[in-house]
């Protein structure tokens, strides 16, 4: 299954929520969907499902969702942990959804068991915690065993064990040859989960590349050097046109590799006590690329570049 989002655009009044957004999702890969609050992630997902109308289109294997005979078997979506009637039992909620795809009772029980809700299957979800609501939403999304899974913040409210389970499940699901798109603010989780990233800001595409490439582009990737001859090393690097910054007891050389810095140190006779390549985290790379595109920021620093995380 190939999912193609083509020039999606959506405005709410004068506010442009999504602007000319195009990307492609491939099967067998978990794609992380990242963006600051209000960047248009949820709107994009709703447009992909045909819930929100706008410009552009989303094709599933070359066809709009409406042209597939059983759309429920093409896409399963979990957009919110509270999208259920509080007085309809969990099992009946899934029985209702099962009608869309023809899933039988055995599949319903299987899915309830899979997400860990078998014990509360006949209870009304009004007393469910946020985490249980997430599990019920996920159960509904995978009930029809769809080829495409869209998950909007599925880890919100989950305990560490559940997050670990969710991570394994999503990886397994994608590994079965399905398309999985996951939006999340838990960047450390995304770093463990996603292989590919679609990053948007103010409704526009910022990055559509592998997680590895996205992180590698960060200016926060550097080589950290500790030497008693720091002045000599800084001067030698500057002679080669390489910028370096003093950082505590050492020197940071952004964008460099250890081989080059080691060679320069050797050439200038600097004694090395530490030579470490430091790779930016996803969070640092994300904050760096989205610092100018935050729709809503704290403390009124709308246009201020975001600070990186602690090293």
């Amino acid at each position: 299954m190939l999912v193609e989002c083509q020039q999606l655009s959506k405005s709410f009044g004068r506010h442009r929520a999504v602007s000319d957004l195009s990307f492609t999702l491939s099967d067998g890969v978990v794609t992380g969907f990242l963006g600051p609050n209000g960047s248009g992630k949820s709107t994009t997902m709703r447009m992909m499902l045909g819930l929100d109308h706008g410009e552009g289109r989303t094709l599933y294997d070359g066809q709009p969702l409406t042209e597939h005979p059983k759309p429920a078997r093409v896409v399963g979506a979990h957009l919110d942990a509270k999208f259920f009637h509080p007085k309809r039992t969990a099992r009946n909620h899934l029985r209702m959804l099962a009608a869309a795809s023809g899933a039988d009772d055995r599949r319903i029980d299987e899915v309830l068991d899979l997400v860990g809700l078998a014990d509360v299957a006949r209870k009304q979800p009004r007393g469910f915690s946020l985490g249980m609501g997430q599990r019920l939403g996920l159960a509904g999304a995978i009930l029809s065993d769809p080829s495409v899974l869209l998950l909007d913040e599925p880890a919100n409210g989950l305990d560490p064990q559940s997050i670990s389970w969710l991570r394994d499940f999503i990886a397994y699901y994608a590994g079965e040859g399905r398309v999985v798109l996951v939006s999340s603010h838990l960047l450390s989780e995304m770093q463990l989960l996603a292989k590919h990233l679609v990053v948007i800001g103010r409704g526009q595409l910022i990055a559509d590349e592998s997680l590895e490439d996205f992180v590698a582009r960060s200016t926060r990737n550097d080589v950290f050097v500790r030497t008693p001859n720091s002045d000599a090393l800084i001067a030698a690097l500057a002679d080669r046109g390489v910028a370096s910054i003093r950082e505590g007891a050492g020197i940071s050389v952004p964008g460099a590799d250890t081989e080059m810095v080691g060679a320069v140190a050797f050439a200038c006779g600097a004694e090395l006590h530490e030579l470490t390549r430091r790779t930016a985290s996803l969070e640092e790379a994300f904050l760096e690329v989205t610092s100018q595109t935050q729709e809503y920021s704290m403390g009124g620093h709308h246009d201020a570049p975001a600070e990186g995380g602690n090293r």
Partner: protein
Amino acid sequence: MRAAFLYEWRRATTLRSTWWIAGSAVAASLFFTWVSHKIATAEVFQSDGATPATFAKTSFVEVVNSMQGPYQIVTTIIAAFAAMSWGHEYRYGLTRVTFSAFPRRAEIFVAKTGVILLVTTLMWLAVTAASMLLLKGVDSRGRINFDFFEKLNTGAVGMGDAGSSAVVAYSSYAYEALLRSLGYLLLLVLLVAAISALTRSLPLALVLSSIWPLFVEKLLLMLSQVVSKGRLGWLNDIAPFDNAERFVFWQAGYDRSANVTAGIGGTGLPSSGVVGDNPLPPGVEHLITPWRAGIVFALWAVMLTAAAYLSTERRDA
């Protein structure tokens, strides 16, 4: 389409509120049937012309009246089901779940409308059957014999000046009267479901569908008459619930503008005056045709349903 119907059927029947509504409608109907029966029994036995046939006819009136009840409580209860069909979806964000599973929204709109009409028909059958069974149960002397092809007096209109004894009575077959009560109910739930889909608000749909027929429309019509000094009389001819009242059984044939010299008893039957098959005076036939009133009400239901469909199709979920 079959999947959409099954989805909607399960959606409706897996909620306790649907069963509570059905149970409440039957209970309320039984209560009003019993009260109506007590009143009718007293009236019929005090009347000079009381016969077993009158008693039987009265019972039919009771059955249909139980559906309307005071302030249309039974129909309002059933209409709440229709309001909830869309209202619950929007209230709990389920429209996004539903439209994700059925991106061709027309399918789910048709299925929802179909299930609303089906469940309403089943509720009507339950309410009607319960009322008839109750009357048969309390009729220890066995005088009630329901004949669906019996002709019933359904209302009376006096012609001429106040105090005139010229009265025209209108009649209807029992089955026709019953079907009209079903027709009214089906149109009402369509209209309420449409309001719910348009407003996307369950409370607003419930309030609007309750107070519009009871107060708002009557007040608007009254004010329009006062302000326009009668020039806006045609508003009565297009007002939805004013026409609906003339379509349903106990009001059928009853003309709001005529001088009624024959009193209408608690059973809906003319309690005095001349009852006969006199032809209507020229120029007033259109005012007192229940089917014409029914068509006006149906047009409202269809127009609002069409608007609800367009809204469902075009607005973001």
